[in-house]
């Protein structure tokens, strides 16, 4: 038996596609690589969706018009974005919430500690796993067939058309197919290849943690690259944040982030500062520190704060290393004490404290210090002190398949008639680099829904075609 639409993947983009294809009348089979308890990919770790709106709307405050959203995207991507697809995503983000609600997704007012996001982002009640659960329930109720522990290891393509997918030796045919199998961030070898070896002879990616699922191995991405599919983005580009060095190798998710960087100083293994900790607010700062740490020896750094910072940042998941004096802290962290003290004394002496205010770019800064700390610079001098070891955490990779407004995969510029792509596998079209919170889910929702409709149409057409032939 052949289904109309085969959806490969089990996260947000795949579920949106499956639901839309089913609603359009197609029979749908969804193949998720993960076993049921790990289903949902990176989407299960998310918490919100960036939404355009012209006036306050349910959980969203103020207005976030198309133009502002577009400018934000332009800024973070440095222009590496397809304007037509970006605008399509932005517009889709304004009216997808009712559809989401119909499939059981609940939203809530923004969380404590993230109030500044309530204008631009709609938060899922319970986070992405609750969203994914709701979609799976709805999909099953509508008759979408779901198979877990079904990693697709290759596709059978003919002249740019999808013919079948293989799970091991099992061949599964369908009239149309949606690829929504995420990026390749969990593929350690590919990361190693992309990041290479540095001048110190280290393989930096060996020290990266993957913040999300272990199942996004990029198997199909790789096969399609080989098969000549058009691609976009660069394999070395990935969204990377600095996380607690004790984070698990996979699925550390949101809670391993270290949020006190701007309140203190960050030193590397040699006890030296290497970047302006007060440059900007989260989320901009958040997204650059992963790369910064990746460039340090051993891909490790230490965020050091004093008692003044206590209770002013999101509580860390693991307790920090605590000491009553700075030299004691250096020793406990395994840093060279004289080098560390030289850095700290230099920094403390250079602080020009004005009016400290963590909610705005305040006037506390350093003078004649390199690198400078341009805001929130207060001496780190009041014990007890805390130190947190940081390492790079990969959120997702940017390399993807090039597509257009129909979400079709294209080969040599020609869109496939029955192979579509959604989510992280094509997010690079909109987000060539950089990141702004919540846009991953906006892209996946917009293109997942498009791919669902398009694949259903392609399947119906091919049905007629076959009948006529």
């Amino acid at each position, binding site marked *: 038996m052949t289904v109309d639409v085969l959806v490969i993947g089990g996260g947000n983009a795949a579920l949106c596609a499956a639901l839309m294809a089913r609603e359009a009348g197609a029979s749908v089979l969804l193949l998720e690589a993960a076993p049921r308890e790990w289903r949902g990919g990176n989407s299960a770790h998310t918490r919100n969706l960036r939404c355009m709106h012209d006036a306050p709307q349910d959980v969203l405050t103020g207005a976030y018009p198309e133009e502002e959203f577009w400018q934000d995207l332009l800024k973070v991507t440095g222009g590496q974005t397809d304007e037509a697809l970006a605008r399509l995503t932005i517009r889709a983000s304004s009216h997808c919430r009712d559809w989401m609600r119909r499939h059981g997704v609940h939203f809530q007012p923004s969380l404590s*500690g993230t109030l500044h996001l309530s204008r631009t982002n709609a938060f899922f*009640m*319970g*986070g992405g796993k*609750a969203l994914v*659960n709701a979609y799976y329930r709805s999909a099953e109720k509508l008759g979408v067939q779901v198979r877990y522990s079904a990693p697709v290891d290759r596709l059978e393509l003919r002249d740019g058309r999808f013919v079948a997918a293989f799970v091991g030796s099992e061949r599964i045919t369908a009239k149309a197919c949606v690829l929504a199998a995420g990026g390749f961030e969990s593929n350690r070898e590919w990361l190693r290849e992309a990041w290479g070896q540095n001048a110190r002879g280290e393989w930096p990616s060996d020290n990266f943690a993957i913040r999300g699922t272990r199942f996004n191995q990029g198997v199909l991405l790789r096969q399609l690259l080989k098969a000549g599919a058009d691609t976009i983005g660069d394999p070395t580009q990935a969204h990377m944040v600095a996380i607690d060095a004790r984070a698990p190798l996979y699925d550390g*998710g949101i809670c391993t982030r270290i949020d006190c960087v701007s309140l203190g100083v960050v030193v590397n293994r040699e006890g030296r500062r290497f970047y302006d900790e007060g440059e900007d607010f989260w989320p901009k700062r958040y997204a650059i520190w992963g790369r910064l740490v990746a460039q340090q020896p051993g891909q490790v750094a230490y965020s050091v704060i004093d008692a003044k910072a206590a*209770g*002013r*940042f999101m509580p860390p998941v693991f307790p920090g290393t605590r000491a009553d004096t700075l030299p004691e802290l250096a020793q406990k962290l395994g840093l060279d004490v004289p080098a560390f003290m030289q850095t700290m004394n230099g920094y403390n002496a250079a602080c020009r404290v004005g009016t400290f205010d963590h909610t705005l770019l305040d006037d506390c800064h350093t003078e004649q210090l390199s690198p400078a700390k341009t805001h929130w610079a207060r001496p780190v001098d009041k014990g007890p002190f805390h130190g947190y070891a940081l390492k790079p955490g990969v959120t997702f990779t940017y390399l993807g398949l090039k597509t257009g407004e129909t979400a079709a995969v294209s080969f040599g510029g020609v869109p496939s008639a029955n192979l579509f792509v959604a989510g992280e596998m094509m997010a690079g079209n909109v987000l060539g680099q950089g990141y702004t919170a919540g846009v991953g889910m906006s892209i996946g929702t917009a293109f997942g829904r498009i791919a669902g409709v398009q694949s259903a149409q392609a399947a119906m057409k091919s049905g007629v075609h076959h009948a006529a032939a």
Partner: protein
Amino acid sequence: MQQLEALARDAVALANGNMGAGLVLSAPEAEVARQMQICNACRYCEGFCAVFPAMTRRLEFGKADIHFLANLCHNCGACLHACQYAPPHEFAVNVPQAMAQVRGQTYVDYAWPPALGRLYQRNGLTLSLALAAGLALFLLLALALNGTLWGGDLRGNFYRLFPHNLLVGMFAPVFLWAVLALGLGVRRFWRDVTPATSGLPVTSPAAAEATGDVLRLKYLDGGHGDGCHNEDDAYTLSRRRAHHLTFYGFMLCFAATSLATVYHYAFGWSAPYDLPSLPKLLGAVGGVSLLLGTAGLFRLNLRRHPQHGDAAQKPMDLGFIALLFFTSLSGLALWLARGTPALAALLAVHLGVVMALFATLPYGKFAHGIFRTASLLRHAVEKRQPNPVGLGAD
């Protein structure tokens, strides 16, 4: 054994003047503290219930905070199904289960008198039913010895079997004991958690809000109104409804009895009352509601997702549900069979079950309502204070 050691450690800590947050945590308490640390860094579940907003007001979780939070949790299951760190994740976050274990421990630890706390920990179902059966048997035997067990012309008047004063003499002490034991237990709990929850006294807006939350069972609505979880990740309102049928059924039956007492003493109108009298009406509606509610709870309890709650407490839950169920069942049967020769036997059974219910009240599942109400009240007070944790804009 482990518990004993924990108690000993606590005692030493106390002796050293190490109060409140410094008290040594038991294993289940330490587990809640560990999980709350993870939740506090994550906070995705903030919208589900009162536990999470209360948690975000804290950076550390001492014994009293943990007792407070554990009793604030309604075991709705939402945060387990939504948790990105739920088992098999190595963080193994299962908040409803960890909270349930601590809750069970608080019932034991705060029980009055302390020695009785451990009574209904195990075999709750068997114990409750055995107690009910034992008491009923005792009454049956007494009747049989009197020759009044079967038949006889009672014309529905059971005071001919058990004179009113004898019934009062049997039930009043048991009832008062239950009230006293529960009251003293919850008083200790209140004293421990009050300093950890702002220390401020209850205001009327706080009391009104907490009362509303209790009467509506707000935190079984999932935060979105679709309900809580039972066997899987789907929302259901059936738990909330079954609870409501049980609670209001119980209250109606209680009101019927109280009213009957007033009738008896104030107006000299003695039982049995028949429809359309007020006590009978309250009792009949209450009894049916209680019957449906407990049957629903029983069914839901057996089908409950195995990872929710604490499996060790199932017998206690089921024991309480069973006693309530048989109280209403025997009560209704008694009423329906009032003109038959079975009246005496049914009366003995009914009185036995009711007696067992009240005797076990302070040492069984009934406690959850009292402790949870106390926690909701403290939460309503605390949330009106500025948040002591001043996170920056990010």
